[in-house]
């Protein structure tokens, strides 16, 4: 068990005491306590106070002169031992600091979630200008598209209902409710997703780029974005891993669904590439550098209309994937699947928040 080094005594604590006495007292306190864990917790308390004071306090020597007086009177090996103990204490302090910081980060996460909820409650009234729910997002500067503002409000509400439904699913799965009752919970969950696709379809007409950019979602969700949302095959992957045991017939059907899903996705992806090529070619037509280019831009806009169709098709694919899965699975499996999916999305959202607030080394 280690003694705290004299470095860890902040100058203010040496208040009414003679410096030498104070250091002696630290030593006395920890000699007399036989139980190492108690001493350790006292050390933590002291160190936490110190961390609150300043980062560098622990590395400073508040009273070099008194330490020097002490050292001069001690034999060499005792000096060496004291230095080794200092190093050890410093190392342990760093480890405790790391643990403390991790604790701080999870508390911050909680705080940000609470702030989010508060913001939601506050913004029920007026138009919400700007987009995104996590820190650091740049919203619209200036013109507010009413379709987008409406969607963002609806989506916030949608998320609240989603979280409530996940709670209901959890409760329902743990309770002994009948299959019929469970079916209702599942149907509600499915309808809720279909409602989102309807909302997206409406806002896509207002601004398809908004849907494509995924501005309304968190950053980690955007990382996985494919034509304005999740890849259906990705959803299947997450679901299936949670659904053991499946019957042989179910495994067969899920395999087929996975394959058809993948094929449909590939076809849409290639269609999107073709659309990019078309818009690019239209926009770049004629001479670049002439200065007048309105016809090209107007024509490119026409081509871009197709993007709405692609977004709708992608959502249709997501909806069909969910529908098919609900046909293949039993009610209980479907409930577990919906819960798994919902929680996976929550984890992505929490990841985004933690990432946004995680302190980084300066470049």
């Amino acid at each position, binding site marked *: 068990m280690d003694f705290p080094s004299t470095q860890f005594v902040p100058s203010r604590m040496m208040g009414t005491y003679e410096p030498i006495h104070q250091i002696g007292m630290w030593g006395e306190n920890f000699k007399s306590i036989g139980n190492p864990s108690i001493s350790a917790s006292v050390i933590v308390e002291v160190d936490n106070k110190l961390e609150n004071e300043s980062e560098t306090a622990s590395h400073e020597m508040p009273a070099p002169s008194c330490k020097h007086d002490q050292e001069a009177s001690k034999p060499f090996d005792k000096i060496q031992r004291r230095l080794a103990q200092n190093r050890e204490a410093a190392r342990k302090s760093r480890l405790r600091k790391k643990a403390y910081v991790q604790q701080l980060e999870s508390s911050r996460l909680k705080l940000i979630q609470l702030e989010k909820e508060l913001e939601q409650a506050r913004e029920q009234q007026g138009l919400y200008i700007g987009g995104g729910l996590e820190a650091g997002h740049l919203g619209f500067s200036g013109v507010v598209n009413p379709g987008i503002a409406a969607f963002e409000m609806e989506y916030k509400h949608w998320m609240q209902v989603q979280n409530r439904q996940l709670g209901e699913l959890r409760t329902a799965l743990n309770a002994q409710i009948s299959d019929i009752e469970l079916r209702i919970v599942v149907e509600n969950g499915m309808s809720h997703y279909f409602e989102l696709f309807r909302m997206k379809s409406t806002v896509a007409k207002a601004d398809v780029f908004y849907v494509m950019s995924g501005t309304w979602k968190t950053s980690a969700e955007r990382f996985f974005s494919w034509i304005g949302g999740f890849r259906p095959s990705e959803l299947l992957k997450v679901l299936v891993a949670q659904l053991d045991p499946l019957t042989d017939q179910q495994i067969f059907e899920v395999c087929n669904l996975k394959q058809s899903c993948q094929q449909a996705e590939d076809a849409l992806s290639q269609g999107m590439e073709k659309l990019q090529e078309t818009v690019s070619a239209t926009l770049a037509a004629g001479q670049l550098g002439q200065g007048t280019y309105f016809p090209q831009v107007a024509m490119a806009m026409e081509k871009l209309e197709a993007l709405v169709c692609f977004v709708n098709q992608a959502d249709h694919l997501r909806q*069909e994937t969910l529908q098919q899965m609900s046909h293949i699975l039993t009610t209980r499996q479907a409930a577990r699947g919906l819960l798994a999916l919902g929680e996976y999305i929550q984890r992505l959202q929490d990841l985004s928040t933690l990432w946004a607030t995680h302190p980084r080394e300066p470049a």
Partner: protein
Amino acid sequence: MDKLMRLASEKDVVVFSKSSCCLCYAITILFQELGVTSTVHEIDQDPEGREIEKTLMRLGCNAPVPAIFVGGRLVGSTNEVMSLHLSGGLIPMLKPYQTWC
């Protein structure tokens, strides 16, 4: 109507498209993946394109293109084809027309 049905029945798998339609392209890619060579009619290149478009709308297609006919019968648009495929009904329908190289 006649021209449409004639074109639709001429070949096994027919896709009515427009030259700029990328969603139509996506459908042909899907058919290709499933081993089917589809015949594409670009109605904007057809002098009677307008008529064909009107007929397709009357037949119940929300958007005139893409309109997919298999074995002379209207399957529908992208939505119908995708739903059919995910529910496992598309491949059996295409089976007689699959040509693997």
